[in-house]
C-alpha cells in the first residue's frame, strides 16, 4: 500500500468564514479564479438549467477526482507499447456511489464520467423531498411520515449492492446545509456495515455550521467540498448559496414519471418514487407480494 497523497487539504479552505476552525477531515478544491468563475455561474439565479448542469458537472468531476485521491492504490508495473516497463499504480478496491435523493441524482452524470461503470445506489430521506402526493393529492405535511419519537430525518428508501460493506462509498449530495440528511444517510450506510473511514462525502457547497456538526459526528469520514459559504439563513438555506440545487437542476414538476416502487415495511405503505415526489398508497399487502416491490 502506498500512503495516500491527497493533492490538497483543508489549508486551501476557500471560504470567507471559519477558515481556521475547519475540521481536519474536510478537503476543498484549490480556490482558483477559474473555480470561482464556475461557482459564480451556478450561483446566479438567472443561469439557465442547461448552463447550471454543464458548469456544476465540471465542478462535480473535479470533486470526484479529488475524492478518489483519498482511496488507496497499489504498486503495479505494466509493459508499454514500445516494450518499456512502467512502474505505476493500480486502483484498489470496489467503489459504490450513493446519491441522496433527489438532488444527489444530479451529481451522478459527473461521477460516471470519472468512474467507469460505477454502481450507483440511491437513498431517500424525508426532508430531502418538498412534498408528497398521497392518494392523488399533493400533501405538504410530512405528518405520519416522520419518525414520531425523534422528529429526525427518516429513511424512506434505500437500495444497496449486497457487498456494500466491502466497498468504498462516495456519498453524493450537492448541498450540506444543516447536515441532517447527510448524517442520516451515513447512519444508514453504517447500519449496512460500511466503515466510517470508507465513506467519502462529496458536495458542491456547504455551510460552516453543517460541516462542524457533520464532522463532529463522523470525524473519520472525509468530506470533499467545493466551496464553504458564509452560513445559513433563518430558513436554513446556505448564504449566498445557490438556491435549491435539486429543484434548479431537475426537470419541471409536471414531468412525473414513476421510477421506483417503494414499500415502507413499518407502516405498510407503498410509495412510488417519481422524479420529484412520492406517491403513497395505503395498502394491505400479503407477505408474498412484498419482495416483488423490493
Amino acid at each position, binding site marked *: 500500500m502506498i500512503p495516500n497523497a491527497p493533492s490538497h487539504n483543508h489549508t486551501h479552505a476557500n471560504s470567507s468564514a471559519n477558515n481556521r476552525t475547519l475540521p481536519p477531515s474536510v478537503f476543498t478544491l484549490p480556490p482558483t479564479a477559474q473555480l470561482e468563475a464556475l461557482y*459564480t455561474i451556478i450561483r*446566479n439565479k438567472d443561469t439557465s438549467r442547461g448552463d447550471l448542469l454543464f458548469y456544476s458537472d465540471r465542478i462535480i*468531476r473535479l470533486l470526484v477526482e479529488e475524492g478518489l485521491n483519498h482511496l488507496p492504490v497499489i504498486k503495479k508495473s505494466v509493459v508499454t*507499447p514500445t516494450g518499456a516497463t512502467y512502474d505505476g499504480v493500480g486502483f484498489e478496491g470496489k467503489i459504490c456511489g450513493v446519491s441522496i435523493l433527489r438532488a444527489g441524482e444530479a451529481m451522478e452524470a459527473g461521477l460516471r464520467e470519472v468512474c467507469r461503470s460505477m454502481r450507483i445506489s440511491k437513498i431517500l430521506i424525508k426532508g430531502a423531498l418538498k412534498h408528497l402526493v398521497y392518494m392523488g393529492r399533493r400533501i405538504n405535511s410530512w405528518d405520519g411520515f416522520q419518525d414520531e419519537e425523534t422528529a429526525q430525518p427518516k429513511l424512506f428508501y434505500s437500495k444497496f449492492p449486497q457487498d456494500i460493506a466491502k466497498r468504498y462509498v462516495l456519498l453524493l449530495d450537492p448541498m450540506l446545509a444543516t447536515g441532517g440528511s447527510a448524517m442520516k444517510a451515513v447512519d444508514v450506510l453504517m447500519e449496512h456495515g460500511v466503515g466510517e473511514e470508507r465513506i467519502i462525502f462529496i458536495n458542491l457547497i456547504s455551510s460552516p455550521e453543517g460541516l462542524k456538526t457533520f464532522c463532529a459526528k463522523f470525524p473519520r469520514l472525509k468530506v470533499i467540498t467545493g466551496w464553504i459559504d458564509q452560513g445559513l439563513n433563518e430558513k436554513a438555506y446556505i448564504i449566498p448559496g445557490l438556491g435549491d440545487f435539486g429543484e434548479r437542476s431537475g426537470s419541471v414538476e409536471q414531468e412525473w414519471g414513476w421510477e421506483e416502487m417503494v414499500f415502507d415495511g413499518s407502516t405498510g405503505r407503498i410509495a412510488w418514487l417519481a422524479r420529484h415526489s412520492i406517491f403513497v398508497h395505503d395498502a394491505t399487502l400479503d407477505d408474498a407480494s412484498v419482495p416483488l416491490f423490493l
Partner: protein
Amino acid sequence: MAGHHGLEFLPLPISVSAKGGIRYGQDGNRLHDAFVIGIGGGSASGKTHVARQIVKSLGSIPTVLILSQANYSFDSFYKYHTPEEIKLAFESKFDFDHPQAIDMPMFAACLGDLKACRQANIPVYSFAEHQRLDESKYAYGATVIIGIFEIILTRPKAEGIMALHDPALRDLYDLKVFVQCDSDLMLARRIARDVNERGRSVDGILEQYLRYVKPSYDNFVRPTAVFADIIVPGQNNAVAIDLISTHTRRKLQERSNSFRPKMAASALNPPTVLGVPLENDPNLMILPSTPQLKGIFTILRSKDTSSQDFIFFTDRLSTLLVEHAQQFLPYSAQSVITPVDAESHGKKLDVERLCGVSIQRSGSTLERGFRRVINNVPVGTLLIQSNSMDGEPLLLHVKLPVFLRRRSSAENTWVFLLDAQIGTGAAAFMSLRILLDHGVKQDHIIFVTFLIARTGGITTLRRAFPHVKIVCGTVDKEMREGNEHGSGRKIWAMEPGIGQIGDRYYL
C-alpha cells in the same frame, strides 16, 4: 473559359519545411518569404494562361497560389462601388480598365500578407451584381504566389496608384514578368471571350475597347514593361514559361539548401542529450502527480489495456488537463444575485473569443475532454503528417475557425491547441507557427497535451515560443529511435510512452 477564378489553389497547402516550403529557424522566426512572381500585361494578353502554365510546370512545388488583380470572369480586387458606379457598370459605361477601378492598397496588402506567410482574405467580386460581395476567400500557406496585375507596374505619376518606385512595394516581387501581345490579337481574344461568355454585342465590345481599354493599355500598361525582369510573348511561349519555372525552382532550392543546417524541429534532429528543467518554467504546467493520475497513466501506458478502457481514461485525463489549463485564462470580478436573493462576489471568464484547434489525428483524442469543459466554441483542425521521405512535418490541411481566419479577430482570440504528445515537437512547432502567422498572440495560446518527452523537441519549442502556455499530464524521460510498426520507417518514440495514442483511441 469555365472555372476561371481570380484565386486558385492547387489541392492545398503546404509544407512548412519540406522541399520548397517555408522554413523557420530554431528561434521560431521565418527564414524566408514565399516566392512572389508578378505578371503584368494588357487585358486578354494571356497573363492567366502564362500563370497557369507556370503552375503546371511547378507541379512538384507543394502550393502555388494565383492572385488576380482584375480578371473578367471572377474579378477580385475591384473597389466597392457607389450606386452611381453600379448604374454605369450596368450600362457598360464604367471604365473597369482604369487604374482607379482597382483597390490597389487591398491588392498590395493581400500580396504582402501572403508573401510574409500570413493569411489573407481575398475579396470576392460579383459581375452579376457589379459589386464587391461581403464574403471573402481565405488563403493561407502558399509557397509560390503568382500575382496577376493589370497596372501595378504603373508609372509613378498616375495618381492614387501605388507605383513601382516605392521600394517597399517593389520588394514584394521576386520576379516580374510582362506578357507582351499585339493589340489586334488582344482585341480578337477579347471579342471572342465577351461574345461567348458574357453574351455581349461586338459593337458594344468595340466601343468599350476604343473608349477605355486601348487608352488604358497605352497609357498605363504598356509603359510598365520596362520594369519587368522578363518579357514573355503572348503566344507560343512554352520556352519562356520553362525559363520562369526553372528559375523559380532553382531559387526555392537555393533557399532550401542554405537553410537546411539551421532547420528547427525536424524529426531527424537527434534529441538533446540533457533534458531541460521543465518544472521551473512558469508557462509550463505539469499536472500534480496524484495517486489517481498515476493510476490513469498506468492504464494508458499498458499495452494490454482494452480499447474501451483506453478511450474512457483518455477522456478522463483530457478533461482534467483542459480544466487545469483554465488557470491560464484571464478572469475579472463579477457579482451575481443567488436564488436566495443574496449577493455573491465572484469572478467571470474575461476573454473576447475562445476556440480550440486540434492537430490531427491524435490531437482529436483531447476533443471530448475539451468539450466537457468548454462548450459552444468552434474547434478547428490542422492535418499534419510526417513526410515519408525525410520525416519532416507536412501540413496537408488547414481548417480554422472563422475568427482565426481574420487577422483582426485572431489577435483577440485565445486558442487551446490540442495534441496527444510533444515528442520531436515538429508538429507542435509547425502548428504554433501557423497560429502566429494568423495573428494569434503567443501568450494567448495554451497547448494541451498528455505527454512530453524531456529530451525531445520541447527544448527548441520553449526557446522559440517562450510565452506559449503548455499544460501536460506528465513528462517522460527520453526519446528512442525505433522502427514504426508496419512500415518499418524510422521514427522517434517516447519511452516509456503511451504508444500511438491516435491509433489506440480510434482503431
